[in-house]
């Protein structure tokens, strides 16, 4: 016994420091050897793959880079290509150059392009502080003003119209504050809505008319919704939908978990109804049917109707995504927030939502990307987005028969936007990772 105990006994004299891994076990050569050439079969596969890749690039790259940029019609394109290379079928990018403005702005009056450009720059500036919290918080004032600036710049008219809408919001806020002092939250919410609606429908319009006739301040040439199109309409519908569907989705997700029967039923009913109906159906409803339900004579802007439908559609999806995030939170987080005496809204805002939204980032951005791409569906209700314009361009004799170049361009534009969203969400996820699991 004593013999075996002795051989088992061991005492470490000193602890070993961390040491670097051997040279041959790191770097690109190791990776290539292990993954590409680890046996005769894998080497063969690597060589075959390289050959296939070469063939594909050899076929497409000349088509892309040998393309013609200066021409006025498809025939002219082909003539130039024939002169240059002989009998080839390289790309005719000239269509994008020729119809660039149309693809971007639709039928927006050319003299007013500066308004669309300015709105776009302002949009980027007002998105920036939302996306990057390092930027000065004061920029958020611009973010709050942007929706009104957008409407004024893009649709034109005097500033009184959008100011009146803004006043409606302010009045709603004031009403909420006042009633909140006496009654319950539900009561103050109702008061806010009533005040805003009364202002928007009855008082506001006459005030605006009065002001317009007395002092038409900041009057811009008016542009009709049917003249909007191209990339511009995608961005307007997409960004509005994205910005509105997130808060509505949060409210719906919370409502679905509510203990209040009516609130819960309404939210569940809404979510299940919207998710059960194709978006295109909702868009047709927006463009055709809605007018039947509205009082005769009401003009309800088509773009606005589409934005509302797209928003409702994606907010139902958003609600479910966020519900997933809420479900993933340990019950202890709710309890800790409760135990500290935070009320429902504070604990939602400070503890629950920041974590639930963080968990749901991939799903939220997924919904955003889906929404943005779905904006192309508006071509079916007669709005000329980029895809709709590509049809219109082909209808012109000069460009009849051109498909690839336009579709590749449109696809590329969407891909850049969606890829940017995807990269941003990955960056955000990394930035918010604090658990170090």
């Amino acid at each position, binding site marked *: 016994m004593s013999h075996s105990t002795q051989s088992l006994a061991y005492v470490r004299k000193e602890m070993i420091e961390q040491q670097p891994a051997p040279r041959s076990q790191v770097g690109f050569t190791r990776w290539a050897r292990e993954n590409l050439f680890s046996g005769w079969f894998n080497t063969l596969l690597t060589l075959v793959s390289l050959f296939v890749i070469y063939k594909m690039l050899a076929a497409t790259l000349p088509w892309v880079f040998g393309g013609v940029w200066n021409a006025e019609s498809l025939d002219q394109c082909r003539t130039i290509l024939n002169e240059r290379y002989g009998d080839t079928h390289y790309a005719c990018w000239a269509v994008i150059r020729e119809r660039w403005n149309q693809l971007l702005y639709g039928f927006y009056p050319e003299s007013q392009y500066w308004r669309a450009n300015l709105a776009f720059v302002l949009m980027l500036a007002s998105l920036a502080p939302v996306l990057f919290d390092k930027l000065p918080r004061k920029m958020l004032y611009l973010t709050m003003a942007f929706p009104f600036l957008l409407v004024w710049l893009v649709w034109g008219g005097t500033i009184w119209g959008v100011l009146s809408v803004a006043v409606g919001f302010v009045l709603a806020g004031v009403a909420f504050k006042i009633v909140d002092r006496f009654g319950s939250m539900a009561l103050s919410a109702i008061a806010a809505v009533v005040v805003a609606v009364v202002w928007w429908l009855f008082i506001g319009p006459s005030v605006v008319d009065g002001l317009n006739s007395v002092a038409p301040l900041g009057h811009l040439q008016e542009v009709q919704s049917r003249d909007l199109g191209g990339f511009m309409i995608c961005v307007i519908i997409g960004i509005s939908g994205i910005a509105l569907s997130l808060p509505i989705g949060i409210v719906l997700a919370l409502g679905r978990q509510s203990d209040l029967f009516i609130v819960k039923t309404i939210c569940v009913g809404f979510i299940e109804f919207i998710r059960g109906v194709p978006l295109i159906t909702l868009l047709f409803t927006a463009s055709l049917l809605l007018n039947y339900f509205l009082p005769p004579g009401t003009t309800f802007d088509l773009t606005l109707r589409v934005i509302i439908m797209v928003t409702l559609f994606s907010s139902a999806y958003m609600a479910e995504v966020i519900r997933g995030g809420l479900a993933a939170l340990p019950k202890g987080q709710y*309890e*800790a927030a409760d135990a*500290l005496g935070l009320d429902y809204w504070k604990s939602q805002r400070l503890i629950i939502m920041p974590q639930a939204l963080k968990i749901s980032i991939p799903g939220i951005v997924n919904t955003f990307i889906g929404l943005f791409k779905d904006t192309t569906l508006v071509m079916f209700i007669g709005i000329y987005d980029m895809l709709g314009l590509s049809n219109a361009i082909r209808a012109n004799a000069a460009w009849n028969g051109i498909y690839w170049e336009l579709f590749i361009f449109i696809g590329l534009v969407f891909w850049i936007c969606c890829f940017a969203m995807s990269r941003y969400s990955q960056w955000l996820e990394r930035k918010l990772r604090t658990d170090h699991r």
Partner: protein
Amino acid sequence: MSLAEDRAIDRSKLTVSDEVAIQITNMNKWYGEFHVLRDINLTVNRGERIVIAGPSGSGKSTMIRCINRLEEHQQGKIIVDGTELTSDLKNIDKIRSEVGMCFQHFNLFPHLTILENCTLAPMWVRKTPKREAEEIAMHFLEKVKIPDQAHKYPGMLSGGQQQRVAIARSLCMKPRIMLFDEPTSALDPEMIKEVLDTMIELAEEGMTMLCVTHEMGFARQVANRVIFMDQGQIVEQNEPEEFFNNPKSERTKLFLSQILGH
């Protein structure tokens, strides 16, 4: 686990006043059909340190969670600091801000730094200005001996450190009563001691404490009363000496023989 060796506690510091802090009368609670708490009667005076022991599923946690309404009771009365717990949300929030609670799994907010964890409730519930809230937070973080971790996130800390932060977070609300729900059950043996030391300090300062714990050494040393629960009822309560040396009920004897037997 015994602490007596290196942390001698001065029991003379531990005083109990006549003022009633918590009064529970004829309290009953059901989970659906299941009768979890049966006719609980308990009066806690200010400055008392009560340890609640019992087998798992005996309703110990549920009982203390009723005190700050994390669980709702269906019958009977609970009066905390002179306020009765009803479904009135204002009362509930008031009581919750007066009663601190520590959980088995700490439940720190992982998206906030240690300092933000501690300043959150004072700032949003008590409306304390940020700077002042931070001073209070640093004071209590020093008390639990982790001021240097203030700007880290909970995930970077050890279990023992996290539980001490959780205690500091509760203390920042200047509670008059502290509830501990198995604060050391999720910890490694090495870390249990640092948390218990913090709790002992708290007891010495006269905090009213209710602890659900399996640390019988702590109960012996710090508690002025040990409550034994089984099947949702208070089976026995006594001073620690009597409770451990001379248990009356058969159920208590069995429990003690199992928990102290090895």
